[in-house]
């Protein structure tokens, strides 16, 4: 549309859009502000100017040992994503570049496993974890998170790989590249951006997972999602500290999320909307 909107209309749209954006963002903004208040300020009524104290952050860290759930979150999110990539990259590669008549069926079936409600398998998974000693261990939860995100990882990689034109691989073959050369010099460099996007989105999904992390951990392996959920009990009713804990839990992923908007659409719609 090569038409220049009038400046007045643009001002109107801009004001409206910013109001909407700020209203939607407000709960997060207010939490950030509150985390910088003292406890007294936090319950002293509506106030957008904090005293910029970091005491709540220090308190959360010293009283609740914030670093343990934080470390657990990092290990679980990154670990489960890497594990999923190890399994998914070869599978997606094979399906994208050597498709058979079953490929479509296999992909749809993989997607269907994602449709299974988590709660449907709560009982057996819970019992298996109890009996095998996997309960409240990082390894058990890492494998769980890997399994629930595996279909999305395969799908995302598949849609990225499929965009690599087959003629380029054929050109490499004509140019004398062996299968190893083809993967090393042609395919991998071209696939890296797609793999990175997939990784980013799955770290976000794993970080925010809040069903299995709550069900399968108590203290040792509890990541931030489970740790924060425990604040719902009365001991957590300290507004500034709660805000500080919340900010620390969402800040890293919020920033990663801002960089992955496009991939988010693609990943979560299984390539149906690009």
């Amino acid at each position, binding site marked *: 549309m090569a038409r220049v909107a009038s400046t007045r209309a643009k001002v109107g749209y801009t004001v409206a*859009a910013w109001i909407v954006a700020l209203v939607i963002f407000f709960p997060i903004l207010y939490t950030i502000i509150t985390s910088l208040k003292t406890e007294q300020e936090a319950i002293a*009524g509506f106030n957008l100017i904090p005293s910029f104290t970091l005491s709540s952050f220090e308190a959360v860290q010293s009283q609740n040992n914030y670093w343990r759930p934080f470390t657990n979150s990092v290990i679980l999110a990154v670990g489960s994503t890497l594990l999923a990539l190890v*399994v998914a990259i070869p599978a997606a590669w094979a399906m994208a570049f050597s498709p058979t008549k079953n490929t479509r069926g296999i992909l749809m079936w993989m997607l269907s496993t994602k449709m299974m409600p988590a709660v449907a398998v709560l*009982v057996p998974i819970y019992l298996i974890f109890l009996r095998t000693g996997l309960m409240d261990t990082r390894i058990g939860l890492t494998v769980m998170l890997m399994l629930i995100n595996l279909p999305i990882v395969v799908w995302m990689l598949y849609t990225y790989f499929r965009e690599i034109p087959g003629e380029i691989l054929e050109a490499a*073959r004509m140019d004398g590249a062996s299968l190893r050369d083809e993967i090393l010099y042609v395919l991998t460099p071209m696939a890296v951006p797609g793999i990175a996007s997939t990784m980013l989105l799955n770290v976000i999904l794993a970080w925010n997972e809040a069903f299995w992390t709550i069900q399968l951990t108590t203290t040792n392996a509890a990541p931030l999602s489970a740790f*924060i959920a425990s604040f*719902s009990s009365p001991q957590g009713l300290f507004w500034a500290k709660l805000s500080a804990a919340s900010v620390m839990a969402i800040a890293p992923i919020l920033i990663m999320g801002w960089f992955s908007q496009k991939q988010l659409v693609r990943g979560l719609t299984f*390539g149906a909307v690009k």
Partner: protein
Amino acid sequence: MATRQTQGLARLMRAPAIILLLIWMIVPLGMTLYYSFLNYNLLNPASVSWAGWFNYQYFYTDPAFFAAIRNTLVLVLGVLTITVVLGIAIALLIDKPIWGQGMVRILIISPFFVMPPVAALIWKNMIMHPSYGVFADIARAIGVQPVDWFAQYPLTSIIIIVAWQWLPFATLILLTALQSLDGEQMEAAEMDGAGPVSRFIHLTLPHLARAITVVVLIQTIFLLGIYAEILVTTNGGPGNASTNLTYLIYRAARLNFDIGGAAAGGIIAVILANIVAFFLMRAVGKNLD
């Protein structure tokens, strides 16, 4: 380009993912099905017996079950309506030429990256708390009695929280779809004398139809499994007022230790999800060709 030597290798490369997912799908689901026909309570693990259809009958006659089904549907439909309608409106707005579009997008997408327990806690304490929340501050400022949201409108409160979490997703996908709308098509319609409203109805909406379908179906899958938001805010109460199917099954399994009953509930949840999944697969599957 499929030559003989690559085929065998391809099969080998697909195998781990397929086998893992196959196990992940069959084993736990089979166990759930099996448990659903047992009298099995973790408080009394020694006496396990065959229950036949009892667990299903028990669920079916439990008033909490119907409340949970109703709440699940209200939750899903409520959130879908809010997110799709507002999502279209916001997408249309930020698709216009505005200053700072990148920043506006970032602000709007942000709630999606907030993990469910944090989202619930923020709303519970910062916004909806009857004494210290922002809503209460506003109520007092205009001189009305603050609302105790989670006691008076538990399900509505949860719908608001979940809608806030999913609105960015709907907006972003609808915006992406909107941006692929052919500008020349719009100009052609304008030349043909179509006003803004009829352009929206006859061109924009049909163009968005596919994206809306995808939003509705994917959100439904996730909304059927809403759990942490309820756990953190109302614990399913007061009574069963904000208990959905997922939460009911969680309560049966983890708080009542009723393995058989929870398993039967799980099977019902699977059936429910499959109905939705059937439609989702058809919508997404078309994109594969």
